């Protein structure tokens, strides 16, 4: 029988996803649980596993296309799966995709796309999803170029072809691939194709991540009352402690950043300032105070901002926090963060200082109550024991939702953080 596998709701109010890569082709025999496609959603990049074993008979949507939740992804011929195997698969289905739907009314006797199916150039059987959702401009391309693009997982629609009427050719695909996708307007070097009147701007589709960022930022600015405090703290004590600890754990290959100490300071401070670890629920006239201390770390990636979360940071030592930060930022860079890695944050830290910034007015990760911005450590004259000396100063920018956090509370919160940072031994004692 035929089984149409629709793009499942993988949680968190997901509406759509963009196909980044197909792992399967028509005619391929697949196992249940085998990854079918790599999808970029507004939160994560994830593999969608097959709920069934069988033979892929149709693939809906090509690389770069946006698929709405509930729209078909693939069609699987699962005839001939009986007995224990079938039961086993059913279990997997429940585990992996609790929300997938079974399409009814598919003609069960459709012939399998057989011998033609293995050829990448063949588009037989790969009917496009309903056009009304997403008008896709199909670029002109030679059959070979399409086959190559499919094989190399290149979104052919991103390439400006060098052939007649801008047709994408084999050479264009090769050049695009060689340039790692940076060279989009390419083609034979002696052909100059300047799209008339389009040269002053370049139109590019928005990635799912960018869409999510835009939505979240606007949401935060529109629904909260932002207020930002700026402070500076002298951290020579922290610097020397960090050097000591670093030496002590040198052989453990741990990247002990200042951020790890700051996370610790923030967590300790949150414990005594619960407004900062809360959210306001006006609809139900109540506050929601969070008893977990899950610290989101804003990470700048080439694709855009992502915020993985260090869960239960209050249970972690500074070194464990350091390890966790390294793990999460590596995952972020490789776009390997799972939905779990990004869920359930209660407070966020953004470390733009690592890029060079000093002060900012960070935007709250709504519906959280606050976000702490860390600037770059600068050498500055400071007064110590009535003497002007060279100090190592770290600038802090704290944005709070003024609906939840009063000015006094915000000041007390940041003061305590500053205390921990200027005298880190206090952190160790707690």
């Amino acid at each position, binding site marked *: 029988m035929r089984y149409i596998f629709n793009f499942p709701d993988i949680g968190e109010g997901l509406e759509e996803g963009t196909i980044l890569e197909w792992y399967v082709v028509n005619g391929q025999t697949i196992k249940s649980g085998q990854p079918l496609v790599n999808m970029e959603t507004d939160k994560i990049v994830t593999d969608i596993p097959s709920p069934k074993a069988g033979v892929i008979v149709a693939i809906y949507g090509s690389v770069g296309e946006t698929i709405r939740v509930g729209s078909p992804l693939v069609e699987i011929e699962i005839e001939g799966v009986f007995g224990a195997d079938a039961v086993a698969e059913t279990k997997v289905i429940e585990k992996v995709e609790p929300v997938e739907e079974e399409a009814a009314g598919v003609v069960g006797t459709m012939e399998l796309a057989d*011998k033609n199916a293995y*050829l990448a150039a063949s588009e037989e059987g790969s009917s496009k999803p309903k056009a009304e959702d997403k008008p896709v401009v199909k670029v002109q391309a*030679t*059959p070979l170029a399409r086959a190559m693009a499919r094989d190399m997982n290149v979104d052919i629609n991103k390439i400006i072809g060098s052939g007649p009427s801008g047709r994408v050719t084999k050479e264009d695909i090769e050049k695009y691939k060689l340039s790692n996708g940076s060279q989009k307007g390419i083609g*034979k070097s*002696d052909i100059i194709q300047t799209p008339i009147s389009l040269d002053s701007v370049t139109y590019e589709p928005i990635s799912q991540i960018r869409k999510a960022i835009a939505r979240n930022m606007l949401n935060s600015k529109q629904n909260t009352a932002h207020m930002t405090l700026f402070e500076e703290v002298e951290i020579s004590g922290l610097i020397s402690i960090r050097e000591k600890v670093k030496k002590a754990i040198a052989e453990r290959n741990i990247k002990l950043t200042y951020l790890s100490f700051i996370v610790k300071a923030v967590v300790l401070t949150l414990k005594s300032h619960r407004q900062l670890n809360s959210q306001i629920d006006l609809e139900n006239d109540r506050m929601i105070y969070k008893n977990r201390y899950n610290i989101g770390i804003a990470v700048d990636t080439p694709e855009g901002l992502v915020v993985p979360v260090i869960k239960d940071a209050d249970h972690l030592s500074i070194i464990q926090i350091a390890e966790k930060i390294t793990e999460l930022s590596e995952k972020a860079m490789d776009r390997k963060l799972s939905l779990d890695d990004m869920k359930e944050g209660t407070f966020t830290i953004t470390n733009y200082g690592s890029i060079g910034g000093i002060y900012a007015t960070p935007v709250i990760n709504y519906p959280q109550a606050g976000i702490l911005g860390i600037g770059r450590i600068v050498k500055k004259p400071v007064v110590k024991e009535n003497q002007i000396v060279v100090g190592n100063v770290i600038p802090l920018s704290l944005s709070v939702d003024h609906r939840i956090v009063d000015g006094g509370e915000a000041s007390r919160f940041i003061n305590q953080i500053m205390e921990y940072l200027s005298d880190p031994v206090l952190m160790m004692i707690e």
Partner: protein
Amino acid sequence: MEYDVVIIGAGPAGYVAAIRAGQVGLKTAVVEKKYIGGMCLNWGCIPTKAILESAKLFEKVKHADEFGIDGIFEHNITFNWEKAKARSKTITGKLTTGISHLLKKNGVDIITGTARIGTDHSVYVDDTKISAKNIIIATGSKPKAMDKSLSNAPVIEMEKLFTLETIPDNIIVTGNHVSAVEMAQFFKLIGKKVTLIANSDYFMVGLDYYLISTLINKLKSDEIDLILNVYPDKYENGVLHVGELKIKCDLIVNVNSRKAIIPESEIPLELTERGFIKTSDNFETGIKGVYAIGDVSGKSFVSHVASAQGIFIINTLKGIKSNFDSTSYPINIYTLPEIAQIGMTEQHIKESGIAYKINEFPLSANGKAMIEGNTEGFIRMISDKKYGQVLGIQIVAANATDMIAEAGAFMNLEATVYDVAKTIHAHPTISEIYMEAGFDAFE
């Protein structure tokens, strides 16, 4: 008078370039010493195919009774050379008039005379100086002369053939390539005793070995004697001495490999080892603003490529950037049956290390071929294994030279075997063999 372009030679390279130049608004002159249309129209492509057509029909009518036509008997039909020749003249006449008309219509001045390239971007035609911003040499080629030891032999070149009143019985054709094979078969078809003398190292260079062996077998079955790598020593009393062989010989038709016709030039033109004008990829010679296209540049010896070069060069001069790709043009042989090839040969593909497959389909299983009584032949399609890209197509069929055009489109559009298979071909047609080969490629 200063021209933007002066083209020397009005063959398929020159006249096409001239018409194109006129069309894009360049002030153009073409200098031709003898014939508008060059060898191609006057004693090459067109007239030889015209007389070949007569010869093929002569052969075909011998089988009229098989088609249900009584009254035609082999012993009472004869080949009338004068009439066949006249028919070819009518055709070339129409075509050359057409070209002259097109040249004039596009504002190209036709200057009759022999050109000499001067210094300072000038061309002299019989002492009249013409200034030219750009000079295109398209003077073509001629067969290499026979060895001096044969100076007493009755040797003619193709140009002369069309002036012969009768064709004697014992013919020797010398040459390595398409025209030599075509002419050998022509003489055979009209009932002559024919020997073809060729150098095997250069015999049908560029043709797939498979097609070469098909061709050699065909010559054998046609009873054309093929002598490879042995050259005539002397000619005595109507007999040509070729090594040990003594061949009765009334006429030697020299269709030897080509030698460039280099125009006189006051600025020395740099030549290649083989004596052709050396040019860059853009067909520019060592002298700035002087170009060479067609046979004289030695890059190709077929008229359709020469014409393509002509268009390319004018586009370049006019600032219209284009790309010259001469890798996928057909090689056509107008024998009976015709042979056509496009794209890479199997040998070339092997050398390139591409994983490939070959799918062949014979005409003997094709309905239309049976209907027409021409079941001799096949299609051979070479494709890469990974994507199924069509890399080369070879056809042997009565109409192969026309059928190959479809392959040209496939190759130009980077089609895959899948596209070939899914292109619906009408039934019955000989072209159905494309589809068959395409489907075969999946198995």
